[in-house]
């Protein structure tokens, strides 16, 4: 899992201090528990550093670990001022994940006062126990993978760190392996007095800037993963042992499952019914129900009774409901928001469901992230590593990557002019990832959906919009993707000039609404561009019942099929003009170079927004 949370409270990006040294020494034991000493030396660069450097905050979770401030001092000229560590406050942390998880995490906060330019702040924190929610091994603590040690260290962050050193003392009986990802970190192994030390060091580390649609920092910054878990297979076995007992369907679960599948014989329909029940009916909420929150799923019947749980509980309940119908369903772990690297270690932060549909073949279901959408596995998790919990163990597998073709928004716009008023029929079908997004809006009420489309139309048409009616599919009917049809009038979008009518097509403006990330690109893009999933926008706009005067045939295309395609075309005949706009973003992660090219291509492509069709309008 993630490393320790130590943060200096940061409010703004421009730095008023620099971390000269960030040094960590860690020693782990047979049980997997570790002792960790963290030392930091920070040089203050401005008198008004208080905005950024107000406090030192260290988080811990009492049943996993403990922490202690050894010292904190300010070196000012020749003087050293020790801060009183007895003033450290120890308070419950705010609930995690947007206020949904209450697992008892606490913060120890030391306030840092009155720093001025040139001061050096030094502090040392000692931890005993495990990282984030694991691993520990003493009698005081529970451990997610008993007897094994895991750590993830990032080299860089939102602060400027001149030098970072991570020293890990090896336990000869259980030596660690490690992997270095996302760049370079210097490594050496030192033997001293019979001990082996792994030393990872990096100078002038990357300081991250905020950039919209950037990947997780875990996928940008140089990252060291150390572990002594022997294999994915062992992890899979352990996850199985931990979860299996709670997955077995009892009477309550079986009765519920039977009732949900009553009268259904088709297996895929049974799966869908059970999935939508868990995804829609079980509220996302994490409470302390057992001795070790964070890893072990609760008993399926408990989640069912309380109608609440987090990802692990929702996954376990779905596994249990599926098993009650005879499916070979398994609990599986993965990660959201960051890549799982191929080194067997605790990198997971999420749980899903795997159904074995054939030898060595699984389909995956995510009733948490996929909640509210038609797809059983959200497109955003395509390509991610997943570990299925099996008695005999398993390898790290990959969830199939989603393709642009399966995440389409397909739009048809039919405009029929009556003098300067256009009758507009807008039909939109939301597929894949778009389906979930628009069902959510629909579920806030028909009126809200109407307001949304009234607003959207008023953004793309000039003049006044009158929304005559809106029809949409039932947002709880999962038999097909969500779709909307809007009947509206656009008054004064067409401009009469003498005997001519000027018409500006709207599809390029609408296309940019669906590809909103384009607004956040620029020519200096620094980091990779990370989209939730590859997707396509296909818009067909027709204006009919008109007499074209000057409506040039036009075809514009930018990009290439491996990365992205932006295309626009206009064709006309004696009483119709047809415009087509296709955006296709064929992968979810683009390099910074590709993103900059996409930006400049899109800028040039935006020429099509100026297209004006000149029509014969007869006399006023």
């Amino acid at each position, binding site marked *: 899992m993630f490393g320790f949370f130590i*943060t200096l409270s940061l*409010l*703004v990006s*421009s730095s*008023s201090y620099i971390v000269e040294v960030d040094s960590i020494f860690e020693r782990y034991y047979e049980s997997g528990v570790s002792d960790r000493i963290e030392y930091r030396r920070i040089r203050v660069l*401005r008198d*008004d550093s208080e*905005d950024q450097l*107000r*406090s030192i905050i260290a988080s811990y979770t009492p049943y996993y670990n403990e922490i202690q401030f050894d010292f904190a001092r300010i070196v000012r000229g020749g003087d050293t001022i020790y801060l009183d560590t007895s003033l450290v*406050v120890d*308070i*419950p*942390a*705010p*609930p995690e994940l947007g206020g949904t998880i*209450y697992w008892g995490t606490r*913060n120890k*906060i*030391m*306030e840092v*006062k*009155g720093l001025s330019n040139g001061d050096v702040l030094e502090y040392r924190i000692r931890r005993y126990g495990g990282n984030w929610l694991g691993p520990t091994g003493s009698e005081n603590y529970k451990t997610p993978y008993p007897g094994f040690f895991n750590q993830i260290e990032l080299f860089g962050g939102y602060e400027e760190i001149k030098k970072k050193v991570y020293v890990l003392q090896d336990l000869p009986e259980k030596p660690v392996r490690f992997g270095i990802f996302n760049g370079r970190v210097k490594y050496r192994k030192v033997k001293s007095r019979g001990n082996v030390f792994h030393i990872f060091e990096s100078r002038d580390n990357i300081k991250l800037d905020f950039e919209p649609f950037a990947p997780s920092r875990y996928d940008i910054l140089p990252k060291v993963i150390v572990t002594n878990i022997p294999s994915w297979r062992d992890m899979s076995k352990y996850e199985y042992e931990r979860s299996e007992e709670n997955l077995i369907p009892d009477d309550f679960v079986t009765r519920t499952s039977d009732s949900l599948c009553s009268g259904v014989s088709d297996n895929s329909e049974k799966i869908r019914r059970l999935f939508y029940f868990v995804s829609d*009916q079980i*509220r*996302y909420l994490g*409470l302390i*129900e057992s001795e070790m929150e964070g890893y072990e799923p609760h008993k399926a019947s408990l989640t069912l*009774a309380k*109608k*609440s749980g987090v990802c692990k509980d929702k996954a376990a309940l779905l596994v249990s409901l599926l098993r009650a119908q005879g499916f070979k369903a398994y609990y599986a772990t993965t990660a959201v928001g960051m890549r799982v690297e191929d080194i067997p270690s605790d990198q997971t932060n999420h749980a899903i469901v795997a159904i074995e549909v054939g030898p060595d073949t699984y389909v995956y279901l995510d009733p948490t992230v996929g909640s509210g959408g038609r797809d059983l596995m959200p497109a955003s998790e395509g390509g991610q590593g997943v570990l299925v919990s099996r008695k005999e163990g398993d390898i790290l597998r990959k969830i199939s990557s989603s393709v642009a073709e399966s995440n389409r928004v397909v739009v048809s716009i039919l405009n029929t002019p009556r003098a300067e008023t256009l009758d507009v029929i807008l039909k939109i079908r939301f597929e894949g990832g778009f389906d979930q997004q628009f069902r*959510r809006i629909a*579920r*806030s*009420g028909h009126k*809200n959906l109407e*307001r949304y489309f*009234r*607003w959207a139309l*008023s953004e793309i048409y000039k*003049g*006044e*919009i009158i*929304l005559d009616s809106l029809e949409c599919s039932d947002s709880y009917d999962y038999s097909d993707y969500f779709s909307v049809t809007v009947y509206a009038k656009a*008054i*004064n979008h*067409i401009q009469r*000039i003498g005997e001519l009518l*000027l018409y500006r097509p709207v599809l390029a403006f609408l296309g940019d609404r669906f590809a909103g990330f384009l607004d956040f690109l*620029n020519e200096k893009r620094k980091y990779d561009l990370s989209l939730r999933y590859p997707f396509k926008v296909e818009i067909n706009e027709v204006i009919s019942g008109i007499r074209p005067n*000057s409506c*040039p045939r036009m075809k514009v295309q930018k990009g290439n099929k491996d990365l992205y395609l932006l295309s626009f075309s206009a064709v006309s005949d004696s009483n119709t003009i047809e415009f087509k706009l296709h955006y296709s973003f064929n992968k979810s992660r683009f390099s910074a170079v590709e993103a900059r090219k996409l930006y400049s291509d899109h*800028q*040039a492509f935006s*020429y099509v*927004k*100026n*297209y*004006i069709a*000149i029509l014969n309008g007869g006399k006023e």
Partner: protein
Amino acid sequence: MMTILSLIILAQLYSPTSAVVKSDVITLKVLGEDLVMSQERKVQVFSEDAREDFGTVIIPFDEEKETIEVIYARTISASGDTINVTPNAINIVTSDVVSSFPFMHSRKELHISFLSITPGATLEFAVQKTTRNFEYIDGIEYFRESVPIEHKEFVIHLPKTSDFKFQIDNKDKFNIKVEVSNSDNYRIYRFTGGPIPPIAQVRRWNTFPPFTLISPYVIYTSFSTWDSLAKYLIKHYLTTGRMPEEKLSYKSLKELCDRIKSPQYLSLSFQGYVPIDTVRALNEFSMTFPEEVFRVISTIAGLFPAFVLRYGFDTLNTPPSLSSICGVIFFDGKEFLDPFKSSPKIKEIRYIGHKVLVLGFSEGSFSPSSWFVAEIPERSLPTDSLYVDLGKQKIRFIRILSDIEALTGRGVSEDDEEEEITRDIKEACRKEFSNYGVVKRISLKIKNRKENDKPYILEGTVKFSSFGWKEGKYWIISLPDFKNIEPEVYPEGIFVDPTGISRNNLRIIYSIPRGFTLEYIPLSAFAETDKYSAGYEIIYGGKTITARYFERFSSRFLSADDLQRIRNEWEKSGLFRNSLTILLKAKG
């Protein structure tokens, strides 16, 4: 491009209307030195989505001086079963603000997470919060929410000898009633309302009107007069015991205010949650925002604290309540100054149209009886100018901005890198100028970046690779148009962004290139209502076309009815028309 209303729409921010508050009863009772607040509430949820929004109740409290107790919390299922909230679903956590402001570590939140919620279930709870040694009673209770309310009661039990003033606003539309009765030594004020429709406008953006404009509410206080309120504020200033030392300079004022640590948005709610504390205010590191403001005033001479009243409030029409104050700025005898924002610009623009209570200074000290009320005036800025050279497909522009945020949506501090600011501004300009054609290059100079008292001046040129639309003999140019206001999208109306008020004039001069003649220009158009006027005038001068745009708001709050009136005027006046201009290529 002239942006009439800078609306930032957050499409994902929806709140469901699929729940109903069956009843909500809040009681305040004075018991000796304690003030006891109790609340009993029942919410019925109708759908899965409402469950996510209403399934956890959060009640803030201050551990230092308040205790809180859950009397009961339970879910009544649609079939009538009672499922009590288990102890593990009642959690006390720290407010998010503490991470940044650790001296506020006593700020806690009680979270009650309801269990076994299914559509049709009713969530019920009762809590009691006791404030020890309370100094005053002061607050606002709103009667409208994002979901319908069937019945709401707000009851105050006060000793008969207590001072108490209250006012109910927006009551007629929503049928709010008050009853005053006596019982033993108490006077009981009972405010009731219901059924009350939900707030229809569920999307929130930076122009969403303040609650006081769209909800019925009771504002109440134990301060008897504005003098006594001023006295209370001044008492705390005086106890800091320092006299003004430095002469006012905008630069030193800005520097001093940049050092303020505590969060304004939190501590400035004077409603008794964090009352000004004389002991805390003696320690620089534990001051709340109001206390820090007093420190600034006591350090710099010639500065008066100006307490901003909520929009539409006046000392004449509002009880003397701390809750009527929504912010604090300074008055230097001539102008209002707002040095607390991250921008280097110090002149006030946020609170345009608000009334302020300025504490006066007489006979060597601030005096409780020498306060006065003023209104923060609109700041008019010079007209923005665009010079369009059509032949060279180039625009030269001069723009004047009170703040960069008006353009980029992001605040800028003096410490930000020049390159970064320029990049952000260029991007914002590129977006605006792309309405004219395909932008090739933008060059830009920013003037007055570090001048505290002058607006930014942006001067630059934009080169286009194509401008407008050329087809055959026609060259069609889009003139800026007014952004459409859709009353149906904003059924609760809008609260106009101050930058929308301050930035309202634009002049564009197009030079017609050789070889082209003017075929068509749109007619000038003007629209006017009691709260709003806008228009454009387009003049053809042989080789040039001059377009002048203006827009004025005489009120920051425009209700849905106001918006409808504006829209009607637009329709009548032609402001809704497309404003394309056509040039014709000369023959031969």
